[in-house]
């Protein structure tokens, strides 16, 4: 049996295991172990399985993940979401679609700090959807808006997903964060445009909410200070050269706790819950990372990335076709995989391919992250859609998917923008002299 066939069988085995409900981490580890053994023998395969978890779990670079998760868990419990929503609502008030735009702005900032699409969607589904429905918004559009805006966290720094990509693709995390800044806020802007377009085409879906006075706006906007402070430490602290990513994550988590206690929005009980949630979430993510690294050792051994890259080079496929194929792959993966697994499974194969056609690892990190935002709201397993449906069972899931369509269109506009203008990704790292 040739190595290429073993590689294909390994991938088929992985997909089969995932389909029959074997946890993704185990599916990766099992298919990786058997595939590796088929090529290099059981002795080396077993040795590899014994050392990979140790090497990974004691890697300092990975410590950024639980610390950013902790910061988000604390922010979720310290009532920062509602204050941010009220501040954003005040900022947009009087404009048609103000509440939807406030939701997008709040999710962009809160999601960036929180770091979890599911937590962001769950939080704002409780805060924003009742408010929008009270003011006559179409329920499907309101739910679609929250489901889509909840995905902004995966792109806007400090993103946990980008931290994981940085590890698996061996890219600089500060550079990735700098690169994600503009696309992240452009995507939030495109979502606002999507709301305005819907307001124009279907005014009944997006009623105008009366404006409020300047004083009230200013008072409400003060509610943003907490997340502003966290954002400053978590992101700008890195670029000002004050902290490494791990230090920035630790300081931001610590400051979040201080703010929570100082403003009496959080007690010891809530802090304990946040720490516990962090421990459980981290273990689930790390287990997948371990499985993915075992699987990627097997993929490297098959030389699949090299073979595919050479095939593309020899076939002289145009870059457009390569990108279309990669995009199609991620659209398919996004229909059934969560975003962490999607990145861990695919990047070892797709990154060399994209580098071959002239893009770099930083650009691809942003591209693949945008594809993850699409996967999060794509049927049949759009995670944020399910989260909202669980909290608002009266809105049918297919109606929520319908509500996400304008935002899905915005996602694709960003994909086209990234491909046509890679400078949207590279400009900020260049300005910050991060090359």
């Amino acid at each position, binding site marked *: 049996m040739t190595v290429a066939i073993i590689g294909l069988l390994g991938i088929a085995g992985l997909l089969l295991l995932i389909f029959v409900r074997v946890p993704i981490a185990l599916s990766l580890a099992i298919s990786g172990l058997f595939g590796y053994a088929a090529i290099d023998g059981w002795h080396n395969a077993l040795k590899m*399985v014994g050392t990979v978890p140790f090497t990974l*779990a004691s890697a*300092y670079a990975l410590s950024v993940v639980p610390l950013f998760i902790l910061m988000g868990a604390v922010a979720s419990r310290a009532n920062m979401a509602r204050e941010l929503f009220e501040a954003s609502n005040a900022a947009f008030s009087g404009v048609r679609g103000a509440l939807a735009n406030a939701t997008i702005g709040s999710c962009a900032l809160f999601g960036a700090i929180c770091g979890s699409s599911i937590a962001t969607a769950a939080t704002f589904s409780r805060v924003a959807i009742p408010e929008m429905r009270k003011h006559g918004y179409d329920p499907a559009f309101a739910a679609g808006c929250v489901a889509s805006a909840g995905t902004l966290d995966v792109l806007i720094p400090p993103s946990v997903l980008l931290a994981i990509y940085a590890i698996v693709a061996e890219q600089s995390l500060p550079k990735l964060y700098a690169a994600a800044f503009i696309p992240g806020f452009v995507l939030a802007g495109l979502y606002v445009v999507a709301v305005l377009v819907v307001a124009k085409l279907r005014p009944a879906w997006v009623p105008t909410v009366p404006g409020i006075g300047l004083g009230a706006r200013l008072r409400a906007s003060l509610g943003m200070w907490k997340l502003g402070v966290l954002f400053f430490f978590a992101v700008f602290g890195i670029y000002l050269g004050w902290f490494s990513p791990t230090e920035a994550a630790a300081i931001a988590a610590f400051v979040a706790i201080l703010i929570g206690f100082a403003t009496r929005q959080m007690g010891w009980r809530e802090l304990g819950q946040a*720490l516990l949630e962090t421990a459980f979430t981290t*273990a689930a993510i790390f287990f997948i990372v371990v499985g993915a690294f075992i699987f990627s050792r097997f993929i490297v051994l098959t030389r699949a990335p090299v073979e595919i890259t050479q095939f593309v080079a020899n076939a002289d496929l145009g870059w457009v076709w390569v990108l279309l194929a990669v995009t199609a792959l991620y659209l398919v993966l996004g229909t059934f995989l969560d975003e962490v697994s999607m990145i861990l499974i695919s990047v070892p194969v797709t990154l060399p391919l994209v580098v071959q056609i002239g893009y770099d690892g930083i650009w691809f990190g942003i591209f693949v992250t945008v594809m993850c935002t699409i996967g999060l709201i794509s049927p049949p397993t759009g995670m944020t859609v399910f989260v909202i449906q669980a909290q608002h069972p009266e809105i049918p899931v297919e109606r929520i998917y319908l509500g996400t369509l304008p935002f899905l269109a915005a996602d694709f506009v960003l994909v086209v923008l990234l491909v046509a203008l890679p400078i949207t990704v590279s400009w900020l790292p260049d300005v910050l002299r991060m090359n």
Partner: protein
Amino acid sequence: MAWRGVIANVCGWLAAICVAGMMLVTVADVALRSLANIPIRGTVEIVELLLTCSFFLALPATFLRDENIVVDVIDRFVGARGVDALKRISAGLAIAILAVMAWQGWIAAQDTLVFGDVTSDLAIPKIYYWAPLLIGFVGAAISALVVILSGSGRGT
């Protein structure tokens, strides 16, 4: 079963304490370095040790709380009993792979013990880094066995 929740919470709390420790050590290092120019020696090694502990000590809880990430598209085709059977088969596979990881980890850990490997800054014996890994894998395998014997604990 309440006892499963208790054990999961104990694992979670041990890991949570390590996460809090990582945060506090890092914050203290940054503060002392910035304010008094006295960095904490070996911060990276301490954080790495706490990271290893936090991950592996919480791993059994992932199984006890049925929080492994799965693709559940098949659920609508196989019914509740089918899902329960698939969960038990997954738990069986988990026991096998976790046992292999623990076994191979044990072999590698013995090497570090025999050679007396220590970290470069604080001379922490490397076996301290291996210990939570081995405890975590064995604990997770036992947790998977509990799942086989008593169901996933999440409405199987």
